């Protein structure tokens, strides 16, 4: 009998993963305000490791406080957090998987700025505000860009110091790297804007800086959006094509990337990523947490809140997804890129059935999955047992996605549960922490002050 391609090890230059399935980037707001991670995150990541995936790729981890997309996600901007990440890495490995940390910066795509960022526009390559929510930003000076390059390298160094298995640069989905790469967004006139090479300069310099900082033998992969489809708001430019991204992928390989992780879209979320529905009726109760984040927040909220207005947003959103599959929505582009590079390529986008994953693995090297694993963390066991799909598969309803601003991360599709209580119970599992509470050391007694007469 021929070996199942899903369960074949994947050998990167600096890392071997036991099978071809990666837990794609996903997280909840369960870390501390200061960016330090919590037991909840450890529980969350380990759930997937225990489910059998070859590697867990962390969710978005900012290298600087001014690059948080959502306050409440852990950061790697301080050396002091290295031991915490180390603990997380150990926990995931103890559950049988590798842990790859995604280094990120929001640029202008900052959903919930938090106390650190609410008073200032985000640093970005452009001063043009984000198009969907109207998030404000301020174009970085050339010097600030160079500082940003160094901060990414520091972040990678901390990941290595923490003993993690590798890092991924989040150069997809509309965050800082995409804002540089995309011809629809980058309006710089310095060396980091204009030609495609210039727009890619920031990403390539970061890769080089990381290599300088951590050496050649540390796993470094880059997540790219194959196509920007930047024109959700119809009058925006379309951005990069897949041909542009093939070129960028080749440059990444040339400067030392070990692998590529291929997604799509120059915004997040995007009609094609994560593919599936967009439950506006859920946004009507969660988007209020983002109203004050951007200048279009209230407008959007009205479009979600009032059913009469929803068709407008629905039209904007779904016109792009029309005629495209959900499962493997980005596969063709990932395969095209794979054909033009010599390093492994991981494809993401709605994967769930064993048959399609097996078929895809004939052309790409790995498959990353988030929502289908949120629904069924033990998806791989179903596959190993010969099932194509689990009995209650992910419905692609995207309620987990749009719940992020207000609700705990997890599956919110009530139909998949016997009862609402069962759903809540599953959502609460990751919070099952047994912290060793510590009594803060009392402050030194203050000098008695003169009594006020």
């Amino acid at each position, binding site marked *: 009998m021929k070996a199942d391609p899903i369960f074949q090890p994947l050998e990167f230059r600096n890392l071997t993963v036991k099978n071809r399935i990666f837990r794609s980037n996903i997280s909840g707001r369960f870390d501390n305000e200061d960016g330090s991670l919590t037991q909840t995150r450890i529980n969350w990541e380990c759930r997937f490791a225990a489910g059998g995936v070859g590697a867990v790729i962390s969710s978005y981890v900012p290298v600087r406080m001014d690059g948080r997309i959502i306050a409440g996600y852990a950061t790697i901007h301080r050396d002091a957090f290295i031991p915490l990440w180390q603990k997380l890495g150990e926990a995931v490995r103890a559950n049988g998987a590798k842990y790859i940390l995604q280094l990120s910066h929001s640029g202008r795509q900052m959903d919930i*700025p938090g106390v650190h960022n609410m*008073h200032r526009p985000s640093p970005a390559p452009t001063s043009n505000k984000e198009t969907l929510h109207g998030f*404000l930003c301020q174009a970085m000076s050339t010097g600030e860009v160079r500082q940003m390059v160094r901060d990414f390298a520091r972040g990678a160094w901390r990941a290595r110091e923490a003993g993690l298995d590798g890092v991924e640069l989040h150069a997809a989905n509309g965050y800082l790297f995409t804002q540089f790469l995309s011809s629809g967004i980058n309006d710089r006139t310095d060396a980091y804007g204009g030609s495609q090479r210039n727009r890619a300069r920031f990403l390539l310099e970061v890769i080089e800086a990381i290599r300088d900082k951590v050496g050649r033998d540390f796993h470094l992969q880059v997540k790219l959006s194959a196509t920007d489809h930047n024109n959700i708001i119809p009058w925006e430019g379309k951005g990069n094509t897949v041909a542009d991204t093939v070129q960028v992928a080749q440059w990444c390989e040339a400067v030392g990337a070990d692998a590529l992780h291929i997604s799509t879209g120059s915004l997040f979320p995007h009609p094609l990523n994560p593919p599936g529905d967009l439950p506006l009726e859920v946004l009507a109760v969660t988007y209020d947490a983002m109203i*004050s*984040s951007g*200048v279009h927040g209230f407008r959007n909220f009205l479009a979600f809140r009032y059913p009469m207005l929803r068709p407008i947003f629905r039209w904007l959103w779904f016109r792009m997804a029309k005629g495209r599959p959900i499962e493997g929505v980005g596969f063709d582009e990932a395969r095209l890129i794979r054909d033009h590079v010599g390093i492994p390529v991981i494809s993401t986008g709605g994967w769930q059935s064993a048959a399609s994953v097996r078929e895809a693995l004939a052309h790409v090297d790995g498959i990353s999955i988030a929502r289908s694993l949120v629904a069924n963390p033990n998806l791989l066991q179903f596959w190993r047992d010969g099932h194509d799909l689990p009995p209650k598969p992910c419905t692609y309803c995207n309620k987990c996605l749009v719940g992020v601003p207000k609700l705990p991360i997890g599956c919110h599709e009530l139909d998949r549960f016997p009862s609402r209580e069962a759903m809540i119970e599953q959502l609460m599992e990751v919070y099952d922490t047994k912290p060793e509470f510590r009594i803060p050391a009392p402050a030194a007694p203050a000098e008695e002050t003169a009594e006020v007469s």
Partner: protein
Amino acid sequence: MTYQTAVEAELARRRRFWRPLLVLIGLALLAAILLAIALLWRVVQSGTPYYSDIDAHFRHGSIGAEITSGIPYKVWKALPVLYPDRFPGGDYSSLGFLYDGGDLPIGIARRRVRGVDLVWFNCAICHTGTVRAAEDDKPIIVTGMPAHQLDLHGFTEIVLAAAGDPRLAPEPLREAMKQAGVGLGPVEGLLWRFAVFPQLREGLIDRAARLQPLLDRQPAWGRGRVDTFNPYKVLEFDQPAASLAEEEVVGASDFPSIFLQGPREGMQLHWDGNNTSLAERNLSAALGAGVTPETVDHAAIKRVADWLRDLPPPASQHRPDAEAVGRGQEIYKETCAACHGWLGPEGYMFEGAYLGKVTPLADIGTDPARLNSYTQAFRDAQVSRLFAGTPHAFREFQKTDGYANAPLDGLWLRAPYLHNGSVPTLADLLEPPAARPAAFQRGGDVLDPRGGFVAPPCETGKPCFDTAAPGNSNAGHLWGTDLPLAQKADLLAYLLTF
């Protein structure tokens, strides 16, 4: 201290930027709302003045003609400004309309319809005239006498010509209204721009398209006359003027007097005696004045009709020799009374074997055009289509074969004589047709001692009543023409007292 988020700061900056514009938009919106309320307030207003004095009601009260036939009051006021050549006197008196001190002439009623004041005819337009003893006297207005001075044809021509006249385009008309002292206010201006001007032109074009081809086939009616039934055919029954037969297309006849209607109940009314019901005759006349079955104001008409039942004509101002009158009365009783009743000391006596009955055309011999204009087909349409299914449906109309023998009350005010007004004086009527004036000027109100009004011979450049024109024949009614001269003089003396 609280601090602003970047987004709040940006939104505040935008508010500061947009505030002046928003204020302007808000003000504009407020103005638009106020304007809409003002417009609505105007548009919901409908009604017509009520005149407690019955004569005033007759002269100025509405019978419901304005609603579909009327023109806006302000256009009425502007027409003399727009057509100074047709209104040399500056107002409608140039066309023989009579003014009794008011803004509108007698016979023009006013009604506010959906916020626009409209004016149009009532009964008094055709049934109020003037008389004076001599040229220098002030004309006396007499309610109920024929409007022998009124040039309804001229008025109709002006209105129809206006339909295609560039001077009636909104801008010149607006200017003319301003000159006439009835300029449009701002709210009213809007109402006119979007509703009144377009409707006015459409209405006039429609009316002209139907009526003009008819007028083109007729000689001018002349003062004091109207074609009663042919306009009715083209306007009310949508019958194309071209489809009217040659013998029916000319139907102009004199306005009649409308004194003492009560005793006339049951007589054959109208010149050709086509109806014996006062109520039906009244309603039919109102249709002629422009009411429609939908807009007719039955109460207003009934009020007039009730009053007219007993309205006496003023006593004759002629003072003929009393003895001649006495002799004339004897001749009259023998020669005329059977058909026309007679005047006694108690007033007019509505008695006579043939009074109020039709004398066949073969016997009376007067012009047949008016008789022929009322056709059987038209009669059938009247009966079956107007007010059908209501208590007001016509039942009594009949096609006759001659002209009705009318009572002669108020005869001194009813010149020119015969149904078509083809004989200027009573003296002329007692002459054989060949000796009657072949052409004369109509419309005078100076009493002629020969009975009637002074009707000078035609002059170049002035409208002329030519008895040779179709419908204008002065032939027929030969009774009395063969009397000896002295008897004729006595008969005339008696008739002058009527």
